[in-house]
C-alpha cells in the first residue's frame, strides 16, 4: 500500500517508476516531496520542471504542474515560467550532465540572475539514461563507457560553480542522510532567490558496476563515510579533506531577486509614463 505521502503527492497511476533497483533517485524525490509537504505549499502553486535523463523523469510521477523539457534546458524553460508567473514555486529537477554539461550555460546564468527557482541536481556521477558515459562530475580517473581507460577530464564541484556564479543559497546532501537533504531542500525553497542543492545520488547499475563500487548499499555507505558536515569541514586541514566532500548548507546570502526586480522595473516604467 502506498504511504499517505505517496497518495497525496505522487501520480500513483504512473508508478512503478523507471529507475533501476538500488538507484538513489527515489530517495531524493521523496526528500523533495517531504520538504514541500513540510512547507505546506499548495500543489497548484508548485511547478516542477526537468530536462532529460534519469532524474528528469521524476516530475512525471509527481502531482504538481509538471514540465519535462529538452536536454539541458530545464532552467531556461523554468526561467520563462517563473518570470511569466512569479507566484509559482518553481523547482527544477535535473541531473549532473543535464545541468552542468549540456545545460551549463543556463545554470550559471540562472545563478547570476538570482531568479527565485530551486534547483535540485541528482548527481549520480554518470549519464545513466544512455548507459553510463562519464559526466562532468565523474571523478577524474573513474571509468565510463566513453572513458574505458579512466576519465582524464577534471570534474566539476557543482556547489562551488553555483556559488561563484551567484546562487544565493547553496547546499549539498546525500541519499544516505535523507533527512538532512530534506532540511536543505526546505531552506532552498524558502530562500527568495536562486537556490542550488546538489543531492549526491547513486547509480549502482552503471557507474557503480563500471567502477567496482560494490552493491547499492556499499555505495550509500560510501557517501556516509566520505561526507563531512560544513562546520567540521571548515576546521579540517587540507590533507584531511583528500577524498572527502563537504555537505550541509554551504552558502546563503541575500541578493535582489530577479522577478521582484522586474516587477519594480514595470512599476518604474509605468510611473514615468
Amino acid at each position: 500500500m502506498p504511504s499517505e505521502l505517496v497518495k497525496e503527492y505522487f501520480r500513483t497511476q504512473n508508478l512503478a517508476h523507471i529507475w533501476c533497483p538500488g538507484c538513489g533517485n527515489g530517495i531524493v524525490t521523496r526528500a523533495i516531496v517531504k520538504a514541500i509537504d513540510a512547507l505546506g505549499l499548495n500543489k497548484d502553486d508548485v511547478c516542477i520542471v526537468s530536462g532529460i535523463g534519469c532524474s528528469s523523469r521524476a516530475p512525471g510521477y509527481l502531482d504538481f504542474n509538471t514540465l519535462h523539457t529538452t536536454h539541458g534546458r530545464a532552467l531556461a524553460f523554468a526561467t520563462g515560467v517563473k518570470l511569466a508567473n512569479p507566484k509559482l514555486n518553481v523547482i527544477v529537477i535535473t541531473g549532473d550532465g543535464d545541468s552542468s554539461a549540456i545545460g551549463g550555460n543556463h545554470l550559471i546564468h540562472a545563478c547570476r540572475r538570482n531568479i527565485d527557482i530551486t534547483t535540485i541536481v541528482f548527481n549520480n556521477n554518470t549519464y545513466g539514461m544512455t548507459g553510463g558515459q562519464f559526466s562532468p562530475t565523474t571523478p577524474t580517473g573513474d571509468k565510463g563507457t566513453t572513458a574505458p581507460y579512466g576519465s582524464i577530464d577534471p570534474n566539476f564541484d557543482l556547489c562551488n560553480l553555483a556559488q561563484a556564479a551567484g546562487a544565493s543559497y547553496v547546499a549539498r546532501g546525500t541519499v544516505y542522510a535523507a533527512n538532512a537533504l530534506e532540511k536543505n531542500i526546505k531552506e532552498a525553497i524558502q530562500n527568495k532567490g536562486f537556490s542550488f542543492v546538489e543531492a549526491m545520488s547513486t547509480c549502482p547499475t552503471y557507474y557503480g558496476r563500471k567502477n567496482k563500487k560494490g552493491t547499492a548499499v556499499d555505495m550509500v555507505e560510501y557517501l556516509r563515510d566520505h561526507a563531512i558536515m560544513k562546520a567540521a569541514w571548515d576546521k579540517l586541514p587540507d590533507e584531511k579533506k583528500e577524498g572527502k566532500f563537504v555537505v550541509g548548507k554551504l552558502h546563503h546570502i541575500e541578493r535582489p531577486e530577479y522577478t521582484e526586480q522586474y516587477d519594480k522595473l514595470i512599476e518604474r516604467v509605468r510611473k514615468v509614463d
Partner: protein
Amino acid sequence: MAIKLMQGNEACVAGALKAGMRFYAGYPITPSTEIAELSAEALPKVGGKFIQMEDEIGGIAAALGGSLAGLKSMTATSGPGFSLKQENIGYAIITETPIVIVNVQRSGPSTGLPTSPAQGDIMQARWGTHGDHSIIALYPSSVREIYYTTIRAFNLAEKYRTPVILLLDEIIGHMREKIEIPENDTVEIYDRKTPSVGPEEYKAYKVPQGAIVPEMAPFGTGYRFHVTGLVHDETGFPSGNEQVAEKLLNRLMDKIEDNIEDIVTYDEYMMEDAEIGIVSFGAIARSSMAAVDTLREQGIKVGLFRPVTIWPSPEKRLAELGEKLSSIYVVELNAGQYFLEVDRIAGKKCRIEKYGKFNGDIITPEEIVAFIKEDQNA
C-alpha cells in the same frame, strides 16, 4: 488613422503587441535585433515581460515557459539562431505550445553575410526540426503586411496550438515605409481556449468534440497536468505504445493539413489572363511585381503568385496555375528551395524554371525581365 513611417522589425513588434504578446525571450542577432530592443522597451509598459537570455536555445525555451504559464510569447532570431532553436521548435510541436518564432533571414550557411539578405531558410523552416511534422510559416512582403501577418501568426499559434514561424527578409526588416494603422483597428485577435471542464475531468491532451486542439490550462490555475516532449497519450503522460504514437503524430499533422483553407493565404497580381507565372515571396516578390509591369508593357502576359503562407503550401492554387500556365518562374533569393515545392505541385504539365541568387545581393526587376525574356525566346 495613424500614418507612420515604420521599419519592418518595428511593425513586427507593433503587430505582436496588438495580438496580445506579453512575453518575449531572445538573444541578440543581426538583422533581427530591433525586435528584441523594441520588445524590451514596450513590454514593461503593458505589464508584460522581456528577458534577454544567455543564448538562442534559452530564448525559445524561456518563451515556451512563458507560454505554458499563460502568456502569448514570441522570440526572434536570424539564420544561425534559427538553427539553434530547431530542437525546441519540435518540442513546441509535440507539446502543442503556442509560440511565434521570427526569423529575419540573412545570408548563410553559418555566419555567412550577417547584414546581407537571403531567403535561404525556406526548407529549414519546413524541415529544420527532426521527425515527421507539419509546420506553419508565414512570409510577408511589406512593412504593412508584417504588421498584420505578425498578428495572424499569433492567432494561428493560439488557434492551432503550434509554433508559427514568421519569415522576414533583412530587406523589409530594416526598410522603412509608410504604414496606416486604423485607430480602432478591428482586426481579429484569437485567444487560446482554456478548459471548459473542471480539473477532475480535465485531460490535457484530449481534443473536445468538434474542437481542433486540446484546451490549454495555464500552469498555476488548479489544473495539474504533465507536459513532455515524449510521445504521450491524451492524459499527457508518456507512452511507448505504437498506436498512441501514430495517433498523436497523425493528429498533430492533421490539425494543420486538414485546415489548409483557413491557414493558407496568398496574393496574385495580373494573374487573370496570364500565360506565364512568377512565384515569388517576401522582398523579392516586389522585384517580381515590377518585372510583371515591365513585361506586360512589352506585351508579355505575365502574372505573379505570391504565397504569404509558405508552409503549408498553397497547393490547390499552385496546382491550378500549373494547369493553366505554360511556364512558371520561381524567383527566390536562394539556390532553388521553394522551386522544388512548386515543381512538385505544378510541374506535371507546366514548365517550372528557377531564378535564384545567394551572394548577398538582391534580385532586381531588370534581372527577372531579362531572364524570362531570354528563356521565352530560347
